[in-house]
């Protein structure tokens, strides 16, 4: 069992994600530099947050053209679980693996604060241990986190059960308060909030269990096998 954590120039949540996967959830995780290839026998891929390429042009757009993304696409087609968090979500959107775009927050400022997520789809590899409508206390930290799709796509997302998480309250102006979506097969999930910042009691004094379930869902999906 191996989880690949992809590192782009400017990724800055890669080490946090690796720590949570390995030290907290005992998963076998390995960093992959963006110029490397991903082995075909990998069991899951995480694109962590950060500022890949300094957010130049538009958040995630340059990283979406990295060599490793073609491997990510192949794995996505094979049904391998893929999670993009924050900048990782932006990269998945820019690479066309997920629908929609992420725009500048309504406040026009970077926003770092704790918020509540609501689980809208508990059938993905990252949410299967969560209950429908379960609340997840979790922090967001982004400048371009306002999810947007056109009405047609929005209806399709709703119809296909592709909205995975929404914000309990109006946070940044996201359409339908969407915080996370998946592809139509459900194996590629992107979310703006940071589960790796909320899955340990020490740093999440509200309740770290719901975010832990995101990682436990992955374990449930891929198993703990070596």
């Amino acid at each position, binding site marked *: 069992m191996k989880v690949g954590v992809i590192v782009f120039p400017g990724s800055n949540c890669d080490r*946090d994600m690796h720590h*949570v996967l390995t030290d907290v959830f005992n998963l076998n995780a390995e960093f992959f530099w963006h110029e490397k290839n991903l082995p075909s026998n990998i069991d899951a891929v995480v694109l962590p947050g*950060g500022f890949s390429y*300094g957010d130049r042009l538009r958040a995630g757009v340059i990283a979406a053209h990295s060599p490793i993304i073609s491997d990510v696409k192949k794995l996505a087609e094979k049904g391998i679980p893929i999670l993009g968090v924050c900048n990782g979500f932006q990269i998945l959107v820019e690479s066309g693996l997920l629908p929609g775009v992420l725009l500048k927050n309504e406040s026009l*400022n970077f*926003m*770092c604060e704790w918020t509540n997520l609501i689980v809208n789809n508990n059938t993905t590899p990252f949410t299967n241990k969560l209950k429908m409508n379960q609340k997840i206390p979790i922090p967001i930290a982004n400048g371009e986190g306002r999810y947007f799709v056109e009405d047609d796509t929005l209806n399709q997302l709703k119809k296909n059960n592709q909205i995975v998480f929404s914000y309990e309250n109006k946070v940044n102006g996201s359409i339908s308060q969407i915080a996370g979506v998946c592809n139509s097969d459900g194996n590629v999930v992107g979310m703006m909030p940071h589960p790796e*910042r909320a899955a340990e009691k020490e*740093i999440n004094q509200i309740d770290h269990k719901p975010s832990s379930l995101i990682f436990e869902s992955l374990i449930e999906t891929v198993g703990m096998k070596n």
Partner: protein
Amino acid sequence: MSFQEHEKLHIEKNVKRELTSTELQILAAEWSEHCSYKSSKKHLRMLPTTGPNVIVEKGYDSGVLDVGDGYVVTVHIESHNHPSAVEPFGGAATGVGGVIRDILSAGTRPIALFDGLRFGNIENDAHARWLFKNAVSGIADYGNCLGIPTIGGEVEFDDCYTNYALVDVAAVGFGKKSKLIKNHANVDDLVLLIGGSTGRDGVGGSQFASDALEGEDRSAVQIPDPFIEKLIIEAILECRDENCINAMKDLGGGGLSCAISETAESLGIGIELDVKNVHLRESDLSPDEIMISESQERMLVISDPNNLSKIKQICDKFRIQCSVIGKVKEDKMMHVKNGNDTLALLPADFVARGPLVDRAKSKPEYLSQLPLNPPSETQMPLSDILLKLLSSPNIASKHWVFRQYDHEVGIRTVIKPGFDSSVLRLDNGKSLSVKIDGNPKHCYIDPRQGAIGCFEEACRNVVCTGANPIGMVDHLQFGNPEDPEIFWTFMESIEGITDFAKFLDVPCVGGKVSFYNETSDGPIKPTPLIGVLGLIETSPLLPTLPSENDVILLVGETKDELGGSEYYEYIHNFIGGIAPKVDFSESKKNMKSVLSLISKNLIKSAHDCSKGGLGIAISELCIFGKIGCNVDLPSTLSSEKILFSESHSRYILVVDRTNLDEIKSLLTDDKCSFSELGIFSGDQIIFKSNSDPILELRVDKAENNYLNSLGKIIQNG
């Protein structure tokens, strides 16, 4: 560029020839107040700098503290005042960048940032608002991109900063003791310049910062590029892990001139460099400009020639440039060449050790003219006063600021910004509590006591989280040191800080002096800023919210000390009175007792009592807990003094009634003065005097003013 008489004599005595233009430029940069500390260096030596946790190594730009189990914490503080006053976004951002590289150069990873920001009156000054807004954006843009959390700081507004800005940045690093860079060099080692290219930005920045701010010299302001900085951090740490670095220094004020001369001097070596090998942003840069450019995101690295290919490979991976610009010589000379031509050839210690000066000092006239009492009493009801104070930009929540900073990245932030002191978890199970504090209003009225007070306040804040202070950094910001009255205030501050540091046995592990903080309107108020690091052996005391019937206990004594208080200045518009004074033994006693109560797990939470006094401190707890209080004020002084005096060494303890007797008896044993003030209850903040209510305010109303005032001022102008 001009030298003073004594500097000209010093040059004549030591160099028996005409200086070249490059040499003149190098000396002007390196001997500027900013780089040479010529006014302050002699006096900084009085500060205690050693202690059981302090690790001293030559050439470190940051303080290093041993936190046990093979780990170290590094810390440094700097300011970027002049640039931020001209171009707040870029000035503040590059200020962050510079201090981070100081942490990096010890071989540690930067893990947290803190900012102390000061501006003019944002309520009526649109320019101050513009400076404030953009400085915050600049810090956010830079720190967020790097993934280094900005977890604390302070923001203050005062008319003395009109048309000016103080942007202080402190950074904390963490690493393994075994991986610290042990700065050393061997003859024929290579001198490398790693990172961003050298351009025309920041040329003459040090001299710009060593004079009063009169013009807007934009070319002296550097251009930030956090993406390059992030790549440099990762590349340097990878080089460190591969043991490729013998010595390292950040390029900051004075650019190459300063980095080369200071490295050569501190290691006792000579360095020969060729400006032709420096990678440039603009091809037509003159050699002199190359030597004094302060372009950002550059590191000077000394390495063994055998490690060059490994370093190049790592730099290639991150696509950052690495130029071999020179090599280490035995002759202790700083030798600058342009191809085969020698541009400068001077002894490194001659360059690095600028001639120091003795500044005259005299007690400022204004101090004897300050009135003792406001001319008239206010007719405003106390509840209105409290509400107004809660909305004061100096007291109101800084949520609008810190929510723009990523304060969670790195997943170490246990106590988040907005409380007394922020706390980081460390890899050895211990926790680090860090706070920076300044108080120019107190310092103006009493420079010595004010400076000690900032120090004590920072200590109190870390104590409230259960941390024992292990080190401090000071940043001393004043006007023109050539003015004896200003120099007197500097001397008072540093003497006060020294006395208290020695008394508490808390070593000074780093610091900075910034003079010439003045505009055509005059100098700023004395603004020393103190950062204190505290270590917690286990987990910190979390800011647990108070609940119904919890008891409010005040440790410490409230004195007749309204001078420089927010009450006098914001409500009465009055500058004067007697500023708070730290009673050393009371301070130590209270700190020790509060720490012992925390370690015995007897209190729910502790809150520092400072700006706005007791009235604000208790209201803040009510706002956090969304609960009222019923407090009977002691009648030793007038209610206004009890509520708003900013006396030091005071802590508000939130206590479960079941522990009350034990706490009281422990405090009595320790001979601490304390009083039981009342309880948390209901939805109103109620203060009574002799059992008669004198102030009643709904918590939700207080909360609304406290949480939203700052954002409203920014949005609505």
